Each structure stands twice: as C-alpha cells, then as structure tokens.
C-alpha cells in the first residue's frame, strides 16, 4: 500500500445479475491530484465510484480510501469523503440554505451556521440562499452540489460526471475551483466523458466495459498509446477522408473542425498510406502528437473491434 495514495483498490469487481459492471479493476489515486476517470457511458465509472465510498458493496476485491477499508469501514469513509452524484440529488423543494443546513447536520459539522454561511459566500450562493433548489439553473445546481460536498471539509472529493448539462462558463468556473482545491491538498477524482475536461486532469484512467485500459499521468497518455497522428488542413477534406478510410496502415480518420486527423500505430505504414495525397493542392500536412480523443477512440476500437463487436457487456 502506497503511503501517499488517497485511494488504492485492487481487483474490484461488481456484478448486476449476469452482467459484470466492473471487472477486476485496480487503480491508485495519488494524493493531491485531479484524477480523471474516463470512459463511455455505461462503462462502469459510476459503479466504481459508488463502491469506493461505500454506496455499493463490491462482489470482489478490496482497497482503501483515505486509509479506511472500503469493504468494512464505509462509515468512516462517508464521513470524510465529499461525493457529488451524477444526477442532482439535493432536495428540490428545499431552499438553498435549508439544503446546506441539512447536509451540515448529516455530517454533524461543527459551528454549523458559520460554516454554512461561509460556504454560501465562497460559492456565491448567499444571494440565492432563499431560493428553492429546484428553481436553480443547471450551473447553479451544480455549484450548490459542489458546495454541499465541500461543506464537511473532505480530504477527498468524488465527482461523478459533474458538468453534464452545464454551460461552458459554469464549467470553466467549476474547473477553476477544482484546481484550487488540489492546491489546498484535496484529492479529486472526477469522472467525465468530455475530452476538453480530461485534458485538465493530472492523471487519467480510462475504463471500458468495466475494465481499465489505460492509467497514466495525463502528459504521457499520447506517448504510451503508441499512436502516430498526421493533421491535414485545407480544401477538399471530405473527399480526402473518404479516400483514406479503410486504407491499410490507417486506423482512424477523424474530422476536427477545419482539420482532418489521420492516425495509425505503425509510423511507416501510415506515411505510406498518406503519401499519394501529400502533394495535393491546397492541403497542408503536419505531424503532431495524438490527442486524447484519438487515443480513446483507438482504445475503444482496439478492444471492441471497429464495428463495435464484443459490445454485449455494455449497458
């Protein structure tokens, strides 16, 4: 067991009926980082998080969160972990202040009134203190949920797709706050399927169909994937995309705005494949590091096959 791991789990498994939602998953979340937990919908992210904070009992495996056994010390973990659910789960028919008061009471927060006022101030909720939670916009609901999770001053924050349905400005504000927290030594585990958010993470784990496919510091993801990417810009990209699709040596062709990303695992094969188009008029080619998106699509296709075979596990 590592000394400076906020979470460390080994062989975590969860079955629902005959479907295995999480399959022998091991991972280590270092202290004080933003740990991105990525994967498509139904890949087992929520189930894993719920097992980590004692909301679900694991069918197999063990581990610790903040030094407490996830199978036996759920109570200790719950008292020290802030958890933000995927779906808004505060009371829509209570006011903002009433909701926060309630949460504070559940955690038996000391000096409750002062702490609730403080957190409302910190999250800009003071003006909306008497508004019913159900009447808040998506962004405000999310901010309030984050405030509620932070009320008991947790050392570890588990955020399950926190920015779903939130506008870009609110998302940016949210990530700024998350970044601030890690500065103060709080560990944040955040699940998402937005690539622009994944980039913000210090460390990334990618899971698919309950199995972990990649676990690496964010900076090393591209390198570890072994993927080579060429970027084409200019005119006639749609025709080019058609022409390249299915050519030997090319694994994926993806359109990114005004550019085309062509990726493959074998550097030479890829270059051979695009060679006939290198001198086309109006198209500029440039080699670049593969983005997270290419890596993840690569991982999904590698594991499921291009046409999505072996998808029967997916929810």
């Amino acid at each position, binding site marked *: 067991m590592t000394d400076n791991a906020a979470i460390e789990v080994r062989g975590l498994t969860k079955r629902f009926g005959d479907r295995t939602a999480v399959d022998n998953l091991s991972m280590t979340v270092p202290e004080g980082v933003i740990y991105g937990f990525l994967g498509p919908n139904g890949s087992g992210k929520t189930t894993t998080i719920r097992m980590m904070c004692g909301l679900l009992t694991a069918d197999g495996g063990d581990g610790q969160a903040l030094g407490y056994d996830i199978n036996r010390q759920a109570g200790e973990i719950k008292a020290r972990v802030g958890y933000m659910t995927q779906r*808004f789960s505060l009371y829509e028919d209570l006011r903002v202040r009433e909701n926060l008061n309630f949460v504070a009471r559940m*955690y038996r927060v000391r000096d409750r009134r002062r702490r609730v006022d403080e957190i409302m101030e910190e999250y800009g909720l003071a003006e909306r203190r008497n508004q019913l939670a159900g009447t808040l916009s998506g962004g405000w609901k999310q901010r309030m949920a984050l405030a509620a999770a932070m009320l008991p001053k947790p050392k570890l924050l588990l955020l399950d797709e926190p920015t779903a349905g939130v506008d870009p400005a609110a998302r940016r504000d949210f990530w700024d706050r998350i970044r601030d927290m890690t500065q103060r030594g709080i560990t944040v585990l955040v699940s998402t399927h937005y690539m622009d958010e994944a980039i913000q993470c210090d460390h990334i784990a990618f899971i698919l169909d309950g199995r972990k496919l990649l676990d690496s510091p964010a900076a090393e993801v591209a390198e570890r994937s072994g993927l080579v990417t060429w970027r084409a810009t200019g005119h006639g990209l749609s025709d080019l995309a058609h022409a390249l699709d299915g050519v030997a040596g090319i694994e994926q062709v993806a359109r990114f705005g005004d550019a085309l990303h062509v990726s493959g695992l074998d550097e030479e094969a890829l270059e051979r494949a695009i060679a006939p188009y290198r001198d086309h008029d109006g198209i500029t080619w440039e080699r670049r590091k593969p983005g997270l998106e290419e890596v993840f699509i690569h991982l999904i296709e590698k594991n499921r096959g291009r046409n999505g075979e072996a998808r029967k596990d997916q929810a």
Partner: protein
Amino acid sequence: MFGFSFSRTRAVFGKEFIQLRRDRLTFGMIIGIPLMQLLLFGYAINSDPRHLPAVVQTRDPGEVSRAITAAIETSTFLDFIGEVQSPTEADRLLRTGEANFVVVVPEDFEAKLIRGERPQILIEADATDPVASGGPIGAMPQIVESGLAHVLKGPLSQLQPRQTPWEIVIHRRYNPANITAYNVVPGLLGTILTMTMAMMTAMAITREVERGTMEALLSTPVKPIEVMIGKILPYVGIGFLQTAMLLGASKLLFHIPFVGSFLPLSAGVSLFILVNLALGFLISTVARTQMQAMQLAFFVFLPSILLSGFVFPFAGMPEVAQWIGSALPTTHFIRLVREVILKGGSMQEVIPNIWPMAIQLGVITLIAMNRYRRTLD
C-alpha cells in the same frame, strides 16, 4: 462518533416536515380526504334517511284526523306535504315519487274508535328502497299513537291504547338513523389511517429513491435507523391529527356519543398508526417508484375496506374472507374503536384486539428492517 445521533434524526425530521408543508397537494389531501370521506359516508351514504315526503288522505275529517296529521308534521321521519282527496291522486303521488307515504284515515274512524272497535289506519309506503322506508314504517305506530294521545284524554282517556307499550319502547331504544353513522365512524377512522399512513410513508421513502436524493442521503454518515425514525415521526403526528379531527367532526356533525375512555382508544390508535407506518416502510423496500408504492398501498387498502367488517358484516363473510380479514390490522382496529367509543370498552376488554395488531407490528417491522437497503445494491 458513529453512534446514534439525535441531532441528525431531528434534522431528517425537520427536513421532512418542511417538505411536507411545501407540498400543498399532499397536505391538502391529508386534511381534505378525511373530511370529505366523513361527509360522504356520513351524509350521502345514509342507509336510513329521514324527512320522507308524506300525504294524508282522510275520509273522516275531525279532531282525530287533525291530530294524526299534526303528529306526522312533528315527526322527523316524515315531512307532511299535504292532503289528498282521492285514492287515484294518492297513487299518482306515490308512483311519481312526490310522496313516499300515504296515510289513509278511513270513514267513521273516530266513531269506531270511540266505540272501541279498533279501526284500522292504512299506510301506503313506497317500498322500492326498503332500507329507506324501513325506518318510517317502524316508527309509524308510534307517530299515530303520539298524535292520538292529545285527543284521547279527559273522559276519553280510558280509551287510550294500553296493550302496545312495546312500540314506545322500541322507538326509544333504537334510533336506526344513528346506527348507520355509529358504524361508519370507526370504519372510516381505520381506513383513513390505513390509507394515509401506509401510503404516505411508502411514498415519502420511494420519493427519495426516485428523485435520486436517496443516493446523496446514503453517502452521508446518517444511519438507517435515523432516517427511518426521522421520516416516520411527522406521520405519527399526522395520524393523531387525523384521528382527533375525525372524532371531533363526528361528535360535532353526527353527535356520535363517546362513552369510552381515552386510554384504550389512544393505545389502539397509537398501535394502529405504528403498524401502518411499518407497512408503508415495508412497501417502500419493495417499490422502486412512487407509482408502484401507491399501487401496493392500494393493494392493502382495498381489502382493508372490504374485508375488515367496515363494508360487509364480518360474520356474514365466507370463511376465507374472514381469514384474510383477521390478518388485516384494520379489522382489529375497527372492532377496538367500536367497542371503546360506542360501548365504553375498557383497556381490559380491548386486549383481544390489541395483541393481533402487536404481532402484526412485530412481523412487519422485522421484514421491513431486513429488506431495508443500506446501500444502493
């Protein structure tokens, strides 16, 4: 630190109370339904109505006829709407329903009466609704008697009928109109408490699951027992409120006598409320949505109305129905309330109705606690 926390329990209670207060529809239902049902069952479903329209056809005008008419006028069973001259006119009124009763005073009635020939008075009643007409028919001899009592006095007082004291006796002892209402109140109290207590708790808990707030609640250090007590307590209060309201209104509107004592009644009510709350909790461990919870509650509610002795007399039900009825808390509760309120049953006397409910409470609570999910599994 991880023991039972009173302040957390109180916080759940407080939260539940605020939500309840803000949910206008539910709150309206809690207050409105008992009153509506009481009025419905108490007034509309009156198996022994009064003030049925009656006419008099007299072929022997005189003091005696006037006395009989006056007696009908003062009777609450009948409303005197006029005199008719011919049998055809009387028939028409009966057929159209303008009158439910025709009292015919035959020719020479007064003379025959004085001569002691025991003349007859003919009463034609619209018996299409036997329940409705039963009361006034039964009361008719006494109405006539009371009318004639004013006439047959002085030198004629010797002619006052003496051989029919039983009519007077019956009239005083039985008040059929009241018996209906007497039986409705205990049954109504039982069914209303069953419905609101079991259904409200079941829905309050499944609502948390359905809206996703249960996940957040379970992710806090709150204990299941704290959630359970905190969520249930407001409804215990509501149960007592409904009971007080219903009994108060019954006394005010239907003048139900309350001959029993407070202790056995409150013991019975408390136990019955707890049984139903436990039942609601059990339902919530089975139902995934509020809709399912409501359907399950109705599954319990309907037999509680039909097989508890409220709608059909218990002794008249087939044996199987009696078995099912005996398994329902409502059956025992209705018996208890009838016994206490109407007959003045003591604590000692209601024990046979207390223990079945106590057993039901134990069994239901045990199953519910076993089924309660501490996690989201």
